[in-house]
């Protein structure tokens, strides 16, 4: 290890090695004390870059290393802050917050009203409404539907339930066609 009393080499081949041995630790520790919350690896990189930038003609080596490393550190910190800012900006913004991707309260209300109107057109009787509700809750077997609706537990009840399902399907199909004619989507355009 070199001591402060030894003169620095003027040999360009080993100049950086001398600077490292003599000043790297001192400059790093000074910068770490000044920039307490900064990543120590950023500080170390700034000091290494300063050492590589120095040349044997530099008059006040310690001063040069400190000011150059500090400058490099500031550049690194500024770019780190900008990068974090960009990351925060994009991570905080949810896709559904965008006006284009999420429905507004007015749109949501309109959708609910349209759904209620469609429901009334699909199910006009209490029996139809019960069938629709059960279907929307996953009941698709006529036997189960018959039991849930209190229909006779025989073939007649099952056939009656199957007819209720068939009627509902036809109405839903008609409702879809009507909706398609009124509001054609891109898929509907030939």
């Amino acid at each position, binding site marked *: 290890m070199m001591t402060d009393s030894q003169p620095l080499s003027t040999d360009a081949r080993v100049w*950086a090695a*001398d600077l*490292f041995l003599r000043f790297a630790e001192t400059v790093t520790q000074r910068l770490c004390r000044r920039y307490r919350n900064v990543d120590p690896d950023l500080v170390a990189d700034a000091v290494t870059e300063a050492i590589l930038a120095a040349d044997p003609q530099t008059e006040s080596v310690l001063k040069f290393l400190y000011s150059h490393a500090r400058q490099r550190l500031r550049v690194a910190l500024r770019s780190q802050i900008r990068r974090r800012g960009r990351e925060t900006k994009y991570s905080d913004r949810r896709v559904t917050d965008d006006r284009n991707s999420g429905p507004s309260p007015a749109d949501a209300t309109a959708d609910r009203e349209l759904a209620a109107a469609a429901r009334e057109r699909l199910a006009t009787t209490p029996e139809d409404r019960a069938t629709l509700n059960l279907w929307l809750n996953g009941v698709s077997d006529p036997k189960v539907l018959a039991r849930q609706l209190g229909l006779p537990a025989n073939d007649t009840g099952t056939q009656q339930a199957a007819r209720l399902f068939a009627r509902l399907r036809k109405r839903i199909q008609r409702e879809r066609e009507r909706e398609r004619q009124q509001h054609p989507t891109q898929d509907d355009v030939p």
Partner: protein
Amino acid sequence: MTGNSPDPADTRARLLQSVWRITADTPDRVGYWLQRHCETERLTITTLAVKLGTPEAALAPLALCRSPHPETFAEDVQAVASHCGVNPATLANLLRQEQTLTAWAATTNPEPSAQPANWLIAAHDADQLPPGSDDDDPGRD
């Protein structure tokens, strides 16, 4: 870190890593060739230090030294080795090997690529041959 001052051992370790990171992209520094050698020979920093007969901490100043110029190779290696306390013959061999490999790779594959040269793959495959196979015959030329 202890109190207001950073831990000196931690500072030294970070500085070594930093020198290693930064010189990895600068062929005009010895560190570039040391790291290429570690990749070629699958060495760690510790085993490289052992090979060069120097403490691990001495690799940082060595890595920062200028790479020897082809026309004054022997003289430059001697200066760097004696300044950093490493064996000049070992350092010269290491630098020559890596520079030759780089030059060879450049002639066989003009476009820089992360893929190893074909002959390196072939050499690696030869190492994987099971014992007793023809290529493993010690009596063979």
